[in-house]
């Protein structure tokens, strides 16, 4: 525990109207934040204010509301940039979610591979290699698989140890001079592991590969500093960091964005268009075709302000406390096996487990009857499940509003689960 947990969780909870909800006659214990977080009133209020006062399309007109909307949208971009220590707001591309952000990268490779004069860093041919890990969310696996299928490149991956850590033993073999890009998860959504990015990034740089992170589960819980990480790109998503659905982000180095071919095309990403031919605007516009999620950007900016006001160090400390408390509580339950690191070091409070022979669907159903919301299933990480010999797990996950009391309720409700299926 690096910092003292000084979040005033009760004050935080007062900002989240949904936490007052009851499930049947039981108060809600929302332990499914890794799937999507709840949103404080500050976020929904900001969006409502925007809709009711300044709503307009951006960048394209001279009227007052259009100027206000453009300011709000570009202000959100600047807020994201400063949140992750990006040198310039122009390095932040708004997408609809993390998944689109990652696909934007894979299609940069795919398109570069069929276009003339493309930057050679993005052209893939048979013999070239792409590296991921065995603990990826499908969002950072399937797009790279598809890319390899369409270009003839080879997909390779780093394994996972029995304790749920990245296996770096064969790092030098897997990431080698044929590797053109390494894309790996910053924090695993199934195992909760915070990965040792430095070693992988250093090796990628050594062989001249591009390297990026899926920070979908990192940005909500840890300070993320792209300069310090030394990576070329990261993807993350609004709805997991107290923000709205419908918005995600890709950050990439300016120079890289300049070299990448466009992905989605259409309005607002062009410089000039004739029937015969189009030239493109520079980044970030180049990658933001069509009307962007304007109100969602406003909500995201409010979410980041909220996190910043709490202080990301405190957010992290609370997360680590919750991780420790969960591991302790769950660890004491008979017949329960944690899948993932069993210590709170380099880990978030997202804990997957199996429980006796009871199927996670059934575990989740009984927990729901107690008002406890957890996620059950493969968590969009089927290969990680397969690695641990299961088809599904039950997963509890925390955020800034999570209390030890909610975790206690989870632990004791597991006894009820056992009773039903014994």
């Amino acid at each position, binding site marked *: 525990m690096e910092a003292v947990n000084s979040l005033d969780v009760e004050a935080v909870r007062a900002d989240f109207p949904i936490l007052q909800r009851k499930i049947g006659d039981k108060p809600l214990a929302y332990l499914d934040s890794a799937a999507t977080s709840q949103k404080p009133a500050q976020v929904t209020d900001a969006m409502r204010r925007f809709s009711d006062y300044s709503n307009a399309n951006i960048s394209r007109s001279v009227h007052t509301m259009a100027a206000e909307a453009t300011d709000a949208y570009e202000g959100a971009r600047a807020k994201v940039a400063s949140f992750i220590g990006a040198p310039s707001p122009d390095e932040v591309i708004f997408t609809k979610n993390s998944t689109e952000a990652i696909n934007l990268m894979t299609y940069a490779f795919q398109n570069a591979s069929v276009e003339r004069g493309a930057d050679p860093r993005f052209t893939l041919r048979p013999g070239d290699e792409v590296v991921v890990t065995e603990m990826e969310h499908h969002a950072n696996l399937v797009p790279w698989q598809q890319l390899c299928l369409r270009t003839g490149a080879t997909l390779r991956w780093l394994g996972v140890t029995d304790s749920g850590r990245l296996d770096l033993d064969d790092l030098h073999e897997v990431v080698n001079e044929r590797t053109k890009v390494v894309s790996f998860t910053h924090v695993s959504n199934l195992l909760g592991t915070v990965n040792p990015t430095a070693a992988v990034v250093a090796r990628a740089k050594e062989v001249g590969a591009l390297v990026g992170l899926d920070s979908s589960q990192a940005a909500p819980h840890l300070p993320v500093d792209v300069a310090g990480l030394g990576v070329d790109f990261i993807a993350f998503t609004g709805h997991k960091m107290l923000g709205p659905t419908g918005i995600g982000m890709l950050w990439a180095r300016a120079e890289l964005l300049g070299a990448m071919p466009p992905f989605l095309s259409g309005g607002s990403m062009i410089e000039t268009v004739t029937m015969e031919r189009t030239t493109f605007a520079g980044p970030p516009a180049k990658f933001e075709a069509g009307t962007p999620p304007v109100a969602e950007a406003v909500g995201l900016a409010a979410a980041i302000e909220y996190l910043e006001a709490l202080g990301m160090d405190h957010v992290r400390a609370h997360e680590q406390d919750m991780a420790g408390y969960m591991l302790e509580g769950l660890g004491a339950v008979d017949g329960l096996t944690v899948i993932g690191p069993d210590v709170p070091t380099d880990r978030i409070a997202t804990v997957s487990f199996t429980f006796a022979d009871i199927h996670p*669907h059934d575990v989740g159903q009984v927990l*729901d009857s107690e008002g406890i919301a957890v996620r059950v299933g*493969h968590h969009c990480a089927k290969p990680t*499940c397969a690695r641990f010999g299961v*088809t599904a797990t039950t997963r509890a996950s925390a955020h800034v509003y999570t209390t030890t009391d909610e975790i206690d309720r989870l632990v004791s409700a597991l006894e009820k689960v056992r009773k039903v299926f014994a």
Partner: protein
Amino acid sequence: MDLDELYQEVILDHYKHPRGTGLREPYEGESHQVNPTCGDEITLRVHVEDGRLADVSYQNVGCSISKASASVLYELVNDVPVDEARTKMDEFTELMNSKGLGEPDEDTLEDAVAFTGVSKYPMRVKCALLGWMALKDALIRAEASVPTPRGGAE
């Protein structure tokens, strides 16, 4: 959240003591079905003889609802004329889509009436239907004489 309504005694009993499990020979149609949201799987075979389902055999991984449903399926359609099995399949599917409002016929659906409560839980309806989807598919394959073990998932 009335748990007892969902996890009826009959369902828990079929879950704990599934009937007719195992993959058996001979068979004319086989289907492999996966529930993509949870990864649950079933492989189900049908052996059709003289217009009857002479054997229905299966192997599955899944939750109590999907396992109980497969067990009930076995009881309902094993050694039954194919036409009658199809009727039961339609009745059960209709019941599952009834959002708790179905009034199943206990004479034809027998233990399967216990699944009425499941139909109130949209996330579990797929679990209850997984085996039946496999049956539907396996029957089509048997008729088309496509006994190769390929299901929707491969």
